[in-house]
């Protein structure tokens, strides 16, 4: 019996979200007295033995030309073969772009119940229930899974990476791999240097900035903090910023460690996508802006004065430390 964790990678490196999923899966294995094992499709530059530091004992690695193309239909069948070999009772994905395509498919294939977007360790004392976000972060639900095999997708930034001692055994796995129907013909990187969903710090701005020409100071603040950029919906709708920066109930849901909101009123639909952030800082000239009710720290004032001051104060701090 095992807890099997799917390891996702990009540009030769294992994603941060997968390190979280590995740590999470290893904890579940410890809690249920089983072993944690991982599966990776394709090759990476990272040392797979080191995944043992998160608590996994084995890493099944499937290498095959056909797997260079991500195709959830093909990947699912491969993961199912590994799951069978590993005797997986719980299978973990990250709730990210790959996991969103794979977790439901693998669940169907293995006749497993799925809990998507979980954010805490399961309660296994009586059955199997696990907590997930619902209503775009406005509430949580406990999901009871009744099937023998369970599939979970873990929200990004919801579980702290655990690093200890240990070396995993890397096992080459010979799977039957179908040829993919999907063909990736182009891939582009978005302007931001940090991926929005995985970012520890996010700097976000709204209509209070008046126009796209004023984003320079926001970008500088984000650069200083090593943060990803986000924006409110009207900002993306007006094409001041690209769609992929729109956060909220109908955009991207994020849960960074620090969220800095500049010139955003804090409408309920905006809060829904960002209220899982650990620390929220709001800069708004209107003391009545609803966002202050959801914030940890606030500055009432003009963003055009405060943001540059904040950037230089942070530069000063970083210079000292």
């Amino acid at each position, binding site marked *: 019996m095992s807890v099997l964790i799917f390891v996702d990678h990009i540009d030769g490196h294992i994603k941060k979200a997968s390190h979280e999923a590995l740590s999470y899966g290893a904890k579940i294995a410890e809690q249920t007295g089983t072993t944690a094992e991982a599966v990776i499709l394709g090759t990476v530059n990272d040392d797979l033995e080191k995944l043992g530091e998160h608590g996994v004992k084995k890493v099944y690695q499937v290498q095959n030309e056909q797997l260079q193309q991500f195709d959830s239909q093909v990947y699912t069948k491969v993961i199912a073969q590994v799951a069978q070999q590993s005797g997986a009772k719980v299978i973990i994905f990250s709730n990210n*772009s790959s996991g969103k395509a794979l977790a439901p498919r693998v669940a169907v294939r293995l006749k497993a119940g799925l809990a998507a*977007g979980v954010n805490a360790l399961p309660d296994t004392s009586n059955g199997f229930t696990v907590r997930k976000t619902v*209503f775009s972060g406005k509430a*949580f639900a406990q999901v009871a899974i009744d099937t023998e095999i369970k599939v979970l997708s873990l929200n990004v930034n919801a579980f702290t990476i655990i690093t200890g001692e240990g070396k995993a055994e890397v096992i080459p796995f010979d799977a039957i791999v179908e040829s993919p129907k999907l063909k990736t013909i182009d891939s*582009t990187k978005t302007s931001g240097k940090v991926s929005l969903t995985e970012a520890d710090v996010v700097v976000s701005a709204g209509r209070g900035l008046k126009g796209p020409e004023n984003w320079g100071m926001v970008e500088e603040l984000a650069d200083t903090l090593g943060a990803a950029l986000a924006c409110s919906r009207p900002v993306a709708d007006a094409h001041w910023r690209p769609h992929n920066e729109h956060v909220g109930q109908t955009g991207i849901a994020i849960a960074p460690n620090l969220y800095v909101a500049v010139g955003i009123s804090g409408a309920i*639909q905006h809060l829904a996508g960002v209220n899982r952030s650990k620390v929220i800082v709001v800069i708004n000239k209107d003391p009545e802006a609803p966002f202050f009710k959801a914030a940890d720290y*606030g500055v009432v004032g003009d963003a055009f004065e405060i943001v540059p*001051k904040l950037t230089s104060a942070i530069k000063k701090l970083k210079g000292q430390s």
Partner: protein
Amino acid sequence: MKILVCISKTPDTTAKIAFTDNNTKFAEAGVQWIINPYDEWYSLVRAIELKEKDPSTIINLVTVGGADAEPIIRKALALGGDEAIRINAEPLESYQVASLIAEIARNGNYDLVLTGKETIDYNGGAVGGLLAEVLDLPYIANATNLQVNGSTATVKREIEGGEETIECPFPLVLSCQKGMAEARIPNMRGIMAARTKPLKVVDPSPVQTLTKFSEFQLPPAKQGVKLVSPDNVDELVRLLHEEARAI
């Protein structure tokens, strides 16, 4: 081309989130219902755009729900689409919903099945993937663009820190999100036409549920904001560094 658009009914984005029956049920009293925004703004509108380009396109809408879902599906028909199917069952969880829709999809020989990225209530984001596997079809999640060139679809999808352009032969399943289309408002003609468009009600075949929401909770309230003077931004940085340990 034949397109099936999955439509879900969700509480309005401003609805008060509260629970009843010992926190086991969403409190529906007084709640306004809307078409799940991802289904409406992106899947449905993109399907309509494709039909505007090629009028031979057939668009069917499908929803799993009781009679109370009919105003929602009529509203969707007012935007566009040829006919709607309501599977007369209470939606309980994603696998049940996907299994029920899969039957309609299989029997209708669709080239394209569209879902929203997720519903804004239970945020499963799973129906598209579940459907694709039940039907053994290719699936692309979080699609931001769809072009049709004969028998191939060209789809963009968002990935962490980037975007991919993918080609795939039909039939396929897509989950749609922002970028796919621009939201529309139904016009008077559409609303009138929707009244007479066919809305078929079919009985569900028995399907399994594999999961259950056993309890809901509201997140703990915030402690209250600590305000810092705009003349003392250094103090904000100090607090973020020393107190919150966030920078």
